[in-house]
């Protein structure tokens, strides 16, 4: 436990994530303006009244970033959770039972991995349409194989351990073995992968929204606001700077956490 607190990476990462979550939860209370409220000042430079300035429609950029956190996290969190819900059982089964199921899933993953995630997401959105629900499902669908692969590898190792064989000898059921013996042994890799997936999910949502294929304006979204800000960017860099920095900070937070977890949980890195 001291190690968790002692690592500056984990600490900074957790602090950033905690801050983001608090902002998302308290958003309507702390945002000085409404997301689509016209403040009467168009393209105002950052000032005390508008710390991040206003956009072409006179909307307060800070307020949009605060309220947009709900959309960004609201896509990333359910998407990652859903990918875990799909990926963990698939990985456990293909690793533990193997056989035909293992072969089929692996070939399928090869196909999905043969294609860059973001491009796959863009194409899928193009076909099914852009909505928050679709984004969640698409991102989860693309991430689930990564979870399954991360789960499968250690499952193969744990499966051969004496305690699992002993359990089997005593007539334990597969499901019980998976839950009692295998799952606790693979929590570490899952946590590391999940934190990494959070940063990737945030980035994917931001990228899609940036291209106009994600959260649709006038709903506030960091990526979409950055994309929209480009149209009038010669009138003020702040329009793209602050949404962009926010995305970067959020991604950084999850990356730091995943680095910290890896140092902590990966035996290779233990000193």
């Amino acid at each position, binding site marked *: 436990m001291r190690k968790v607190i002692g690592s500056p990476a984990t600490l900074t990462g957790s602090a950033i994530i905690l801050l983001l979550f608090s902002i998302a939860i308290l958003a309507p209370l702390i945002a000085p303006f409404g997301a689509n409220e016209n403040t009467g000042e168009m393209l105002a430079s950052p000032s005390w009244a508008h710390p991040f300035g206003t956009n072409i429609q006179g909307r307060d950029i800070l307020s949009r970033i605060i309220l947009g956190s709900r959309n960004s996290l609201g896509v990333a969190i359910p998407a990652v959770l859903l990918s875990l819900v799909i990926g963990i059982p698939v990985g456990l089964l293909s690793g533990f039972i193997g056989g035909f199921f293992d072969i089929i899933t692996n*070939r*399928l993953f*090869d*196909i999905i991995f*043969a*294609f*860059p*995630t*973001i*491009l*796959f997401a*863009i*194409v*899928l959105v*193009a*076909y*099914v*349409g852009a909505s928050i629900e679709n984004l969640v499902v698409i991102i989860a669908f693309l991430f689930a194989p990564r979870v399954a692969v991360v789960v499968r590898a250690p499952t193969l190792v744990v499966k051969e351990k004496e305690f699992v064989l002993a359990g089997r000898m005593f007539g334990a059921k597969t499901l019980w073995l998976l839950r009692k013996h295998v799952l606790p042994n693979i929590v570490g890799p899952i946590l590391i992968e999940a934190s990494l997936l959070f*940063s990737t999910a945030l*980035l994917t949502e*931001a*990228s899609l929204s*940036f*291209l106009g*294929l994600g959260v649709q304006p006038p709903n506030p979204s960091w990526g979409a606001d*950055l*994309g929209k800000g*480009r149209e009038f*960017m*010669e009138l003020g*860099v702040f329009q*793209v*700077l602050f949404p*962009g920095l926010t*995305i*970067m*900070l959020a*991604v*950084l937070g999850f*990356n*730091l956490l995943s*680095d910290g977890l890896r140092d902590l949980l990966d035996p290779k890195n233990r000193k």
Partner: protein
Amino acid sequence: MLSYLIKRLVLMVPVLVGVSFLTFALMRIIPGDIVTNMMGVSASNNPETRARVLQELGLDKPLLEQYVWWLGRILRGDFGHSFVHGGPVLTEILRCLPVTFELCLIAMLSAIFFGVPLGVFAGVYSGKLPDTVARLYALLGISAPGFFIGTLIVVLGAKYFPGVPTLGYVPFLEDPMANLVRIIWPSVTLGIGVGAILLRYTRGSVIDVLSEDYVRTAEAKGLPFFQVVYKHAVRNALIPVITAAGVWTAYLLGSSVLVEEVFAVPGLGRLVLSSIQNRDYPMIQAAVIFMSIGICTIILITDILVSFADPRVKLQ
């Protein structure tokens, strides 16, 4: 070598068949009626138009037959015609392909140029100040989205260096200088993230290798530090980095979509985006297939490079 190559190419087939089936299946997940989606309500009510579109897409036959028919056409190099301008899809793709190829090539070179030396440096001095600085740089590079860095380059470039062109594309053969001056910005933008990732791989690999027995032996027999590091350690440390570079080139190809959009580079990614806006489905399908062929090829080339770099790896 030759038999390995043939084997690998054969192994590529099931993946490509899978990708083609997925792209084919995409046509079927469009909600609602595809003809209405593509042509608008008024045109789709015209039975002649409807029949023509369904035939063009091969949707007028049973499912499996449709797929075989479609695949057969693609294998003959017929990717269909664009819904927008009616020209063959293949021509358009072949026009955009070299642009994306150049972009990704220079991006990868810049990523290696920045990432690998810094990674070696950080690994050799691990735990010291240069390491901390390099790791911090890597962390920021990984976290900064390419479309954000790219937008900043375009905005700030236009504002403070109005004479420097950052947008658009000039073919290399037309004007090599104008080509390079423009392509360097999107390439470097694209390369920053991958460079940061390669830095991390290199650093980790160098640290691992430096703790190997043969490095200790080399040190013990009195070789100068420089020679130990660069002759013994780094050469071995770079082998896993080659694999990483190959895998991340695939990622580069995906991210190029965003960077091409930001810098108005007329590559494959931008073609996909505009086709999406126009609902030009044959174009999207063809682009998807070409990109996955590209990625499979990159991974194959990487494996071959690794076997050259590491005599212990046998191609089989």
